[in-house]
Every structure is written in structure tokens, then in C-alpha cells.
């Protein structure tokens, strides 16, 4: 399937999960790019990949790998 898409001129994709749901991102893209593609401002969310916090300053260097589990966190009210 991926080869067929590539042959058709479509950019390859990397399969990840985002907040527990299947998601595809352009191959070679970064965590920072993913956050931006979702329309989220960098300071509005915190990120974790595969259960580990990734600081905002490190997102641009964090390339997404197949199977990565990305979680986005945001402020909520709480006790």
C-alpha cells in the first residue's frame, strides 16, 4: 500500500497513535510539526512519546517513528 502511494507521488507516511487513536504523519516529520499540524500552539500543550515527557524545546529534534504513541496534555481544572 505504502509503495503504491509512493509510486503515485504521495509522500510516505508514518503510522503512529495520537491520544490513543491511529494517526498518520508525514514520514520524517517531527513532534513539533505534528503539534503544529493539529493547530495547537506550542505553549498550549505538553507532549509525551511512548510514555516519556518530551520538552517543548526538544520537539523539533524528535522525529516520529513508526509505532510511536504520542500523547498531548493540556490544563484542566482539578482537585
Amino acid at each position: 500500500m505504502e509503495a503504491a502511494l509512493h509510486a503515485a507521488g504521495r509522500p510516505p507516511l508514518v503510522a503512529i497513535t495520537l491520544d490513543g487513536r491511529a494517526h498518520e504523519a508525514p514520514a520524517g516529520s517531527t513532534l513539533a510539526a505534528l503539534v503544529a499540524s493539529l493547530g495547537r500552539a506550542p505553549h498550549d500543550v505538553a507532549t509525551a512519546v511512548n510514555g516519556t515527557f518530551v520538552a517543548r524545546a526538544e520537539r523539533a529534534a524528535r522525529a516520529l517513528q513508526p509505532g510511536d504513541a504520542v500523547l498531548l496534555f493540556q490544563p484542566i481544572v482539578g482537585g
Partner: protein
Amino acid sequence: MNNELLHADDAWQVDGVRLHSRFLLGSARYPSPEALREAIVASGTQLVTMGLRRGPQPGGDDAFVAAVRHALEATGARLLPNTAGCYSAHDAVQVAHMARELYGTRWIKLEVLGDRQTLQPDMAGTLDAATQLVRDGFVVFPYCNDDLVACRRLLDAGCPLLMPWGAPIGSGQGLLNPFALRTLRERLPDATLVIDAGLGAPSHATRALEMGYDAVLLSTAVGQARDPVAMARAFRLAVEAGRIGWRAGVMAPRERAVASTPVEPVAPGAARP
């Protein structure tokens, strides 16, 4: 009338920050953002807790989060992020780091829960997470049980205070084990102790402060009251009353009656009672 106790500077301190309010307030389960904002103001609190959640929040918490931020701007109160919903030290540590980045504070109310029904703290996990977070530069407010030995370990790990539960989170049952709480107070005389969880009525808060606890944290009792703003004020007064009472010296209970009015016999020559 001696007004010293009413006007004395009776602040407590955490991380070099002096706090005059002994009422920490959670921000959950309010009927409206307006009620939340007004309750924060009415409470006089200087510490408001908030959390983090993963995933999109459709309809979300945005208005409530904004209400908290507005109230903090108006009152000068600080945010105390928490790791609510974490069931492992690993998760709590990750959430704490995310909270520090999102909220811009190194203060963290640490919750590592051990049971999804009782929501009681996992003390081993709490100690593990606290140790890591102290090493990472956090000021850790650990939600804990009333086990003296486990609590001492948290202090030894570098937590500046303890937050033992009064009763299960959200249960409103008050101080279920006053003996254990008194033991903690007596055996840890120099520790800052904040009752966290399970308070339901203002009188519970008064009792906690009368026992010598330094502060209380509660959320559901205010948010779920019929009138959260009035309840926030009630708890504020209750906390103040308990603190003044403790400083004034609560009398020790007695087993026998002791007349508070000197009684003289009415009939001359009759025996004195």
C-alpha cells in the same frame, strides 16, 4: 479583649513563600466558570490546584481554566498543579514535568494512587516519585495516608510538607481517623501538615486546624455545595476559627463535670455542693 491572636502575622511558609491563607482550594466540579471564579475569591485562598489531561477536551475545560486564571490574576493566588489520575510513580513524574512546563511552576501536588475505588495513595509509589521529583528540582506536596513511618520517609526524601488524607477523596466524611492524625501531629511537631481529601463540612476544617494542622485542601465540598461561593466563604471562616482556636489553646476534655459558675447554697447553713 486580647486581639493579638486576631491580628498577629500567622503566616506559614513553603519554599520561602509566606502564605497567610490556610485554605488550599481545588478547582474541580463547579457548576459554572463564574461560580468557580467567585468561589476562589470568596475563599481567600492563595493556592489553587489544577491538573492535566491528555487528549482533546470537546466543549472542554477552557472556560473553567480561564476562570481560574482570571481569579488568580485578581487575587494574586498561586497555582498548584497536581498529578491527579496517576497510578504509577513513572506516570506521576512524567505528568509533573509536563505540569512544570505548562504552568511555569516547580511546585507540584503529587498524587500516586493505589486503588481505583478507594483512590488511596500508593505510599511506595509516592515515595519513589517524590524522590525523583525532588532530585529534579520540584517542590513536592505529597498526598499521603496517615502512616507515620511512611510519612517520615517522604519528609526525609525532601518533601517540605505532608498532605495526609482526612477521608477518601470526594467522600465528604471529614477526619475519619483523628487518632492517627493526632499522632502525626505529635510525632512530627516541626513538619508542615496539610489535611488533603475527604473534608465535607466547614466544621471538619475547623477540627483539623484545632488539632494543630497547618492548613487544609479541599475541592468537592465547595464545588458541589448548593452555593459554592457561600460555602467557600464558610470554609474560609472555619479555617480561621480553627487556627485561632488552636493558638488560643483549646481546653482538654474532662471526664467529669466541672461547674463553670461557682455555686453557693441558697439556704444559710446548708452544705456547699
